[in-house]
């Protein structure tokens, strides 16, 4: 059980880091997603890896550590899942906008060896009047 969880976390992190370091935004987003899965598993297992135990007190079951699983990591992992999910949505939107504006899926906004397109200078941030 521990071995299965540990190796799952390890494989997910390895894949996530590899994808995160690639130069295409799509790969980067997949990498971030894999990393967040790995993190969720890790937090989930930080309580203790047990099977079939309830996280809340039950009648007739003495309140001892061996009869229950730790409820806190479950709450933490819920928070982490929600935040990671929202962040993935944000980064997808940013990546799509980046692709549409720069006409390239490269993380630098332009293909290596080619200058960035000159069409969109960032006039709005400069505060200069729009043409």
């Amino acid at each position, binding site marked *: 059980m521990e071995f299965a969880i540990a190796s799952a976390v390890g494989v997910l992190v390895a894949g996530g880091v590899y994808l*995160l370091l690639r130069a295409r935004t799509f790969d980067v987003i997949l990498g971030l997603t894999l990393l967040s899965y790995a993190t969720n598993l890790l937090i989930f297992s930080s309580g203790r890896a047990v099977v079939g135990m309830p996280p809340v007190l039950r009648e007739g079951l003495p309140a001892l550590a061996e009869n229950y699983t730790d409820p806190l990591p479950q709450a*933490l992992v819920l*928070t982490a899942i929600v935040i990671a999910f929202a962040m993935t949505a944000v980064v997808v939107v940013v990546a799509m906008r980046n692709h549409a504006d720069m006409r390239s899926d490269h993380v*630098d906004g332009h293909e290596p060896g080619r200058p*960035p397109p000159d069409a969109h200078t960032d006039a709005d*941030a400069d505060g*200069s009047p729009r043409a």
Partner: protein
Amino acid sequence: MMQHLLLVPIVLPLLSGAILLLLERRHKVRVLRVASGVSLLLLLAATLTLLARAADGGIEVYLLGDWPSRLGIVLMFDRLSALMVTTTTLLAIPALMYASAGWDRRALHFHALFQFQLAGLNGAFLTGDIFNLFVFFEVMLIASYGLLLSGARGERISAGMHYVVFNIAASTLFLIALGLIYGLLGTLNMAELAVRLREVAPEDVALVRAACGLLLVVFCAKAALLPMYLWLPETYARAPAAVAALFVILTKVGLYAVLRTGTLMFGEEAGPLAGFGREAMLAFGLVTMLQASLGVVGALRLRISAAYLVLMSSGMLFIAFGLALPGSIAAGLYYLPHSCFGAAAMFLIAHIVQRERAAVGDRVQPMAPPMPCLTGFLYLLVAVSLIGLPPLSGFIGKFLLLAAVPAQDTALVYATVLGSSLLALIGLTRTGTRLFWRTEEDENEDEGGQPAPAAVAAKVGRLEFAATGLLIGYGIAMTLAAGPILRYTTATAAQLLSPGDYVQEVRGTTPRMREP
């Protein structure tokens, strides 16, 4: 009733952000500005009351949901939290003023996002639970993505992409560290962690070190320490001026977390982890400072040099907190608000310059006709203050820090701090003379000799100058009131370096209405 005042800096911006979201559908931007401003003034009143209460030296603990501190989430505030919250609010006022001069029309949901950003910042400064710190970091970051990217096109989206991806990766690392810490120590309350770190079993020490190291790496990444700052100059230089001015405090959140965990969890009593990471922070802080001053010299645009000045102050504060002496922390805490106000003012000035010289923007090259005197004068004041020349606040901060350096570190620290200040002096002087004094035509010829009317200089409003002036005014006030402020920061350093009281206070606070 008064004990609930602690919640105001978090709840008030959250509520007003939500109300602003409702208002913005039906009302003109003028209504939003007034509502946002009123909320900020109420926040200022609350934080000043908190500051006055913290100055007495008490540590207040607020049990959320009335659960005992080892079970539930606690909020707490002491002198350090009060100082940080006050700095945030003071910085937010000119940023909002500047944005209200026109930027807020262009950015969708600007006022609501601004308030959510403040809620996240204040929450991060007031929480006593490390997972809650993560949540407030996220609130703050999500609002910052919105502020940075709303209304953005092209290059700013690209810079924003780097910023978002970097911060999500850092947050993931934060979660990994938290998972490990909870698995090893069984708690996420900072005071409780401090106690349990003292009695770590010897066979766990290596793992605990790894987890705490990850935590520090995350905080240093937020504070833009050396290898992890590469995203910062581009992002800050591309952000709209008012947003960049507010973002200056985001790096300070990382520094706050480093200082809080460093003194509370890795203090003298921490057993195997005493002084964890301090030498590394000192060393990386020195290199960051040097690197950033080279960036100031090499910057081709005023905004880029402003971003490097933010980095320089980060390096400086890492030196102060890495030394972890009463004197150096006190000096660092004086330097922290000063550098926030100074760097924010620099971003605003860069934007003013950019619009007054529509043809070349804030690029460091001369143009005719010369700039108005007022802008140049403001630039001079900010530059003097940030470099650390007398008589302004930067000088006092740097002088006190250098005075607090212990004898065995003087050679390295003096050489770096003074050397990088000299480099910054050279860089900012060159920028200033080229922007404000020299008016040569011939250097513009390579632009194709385009006629000047191609771009009409935008008019800079009075409100924008007032915002910049207010930031500079803070700096001058800090210089004049240096005595009382330093007494406060010295007391803060003393409080931080005796974490026993804090731990006692958190563990000793019992629920009011609930039987534990």
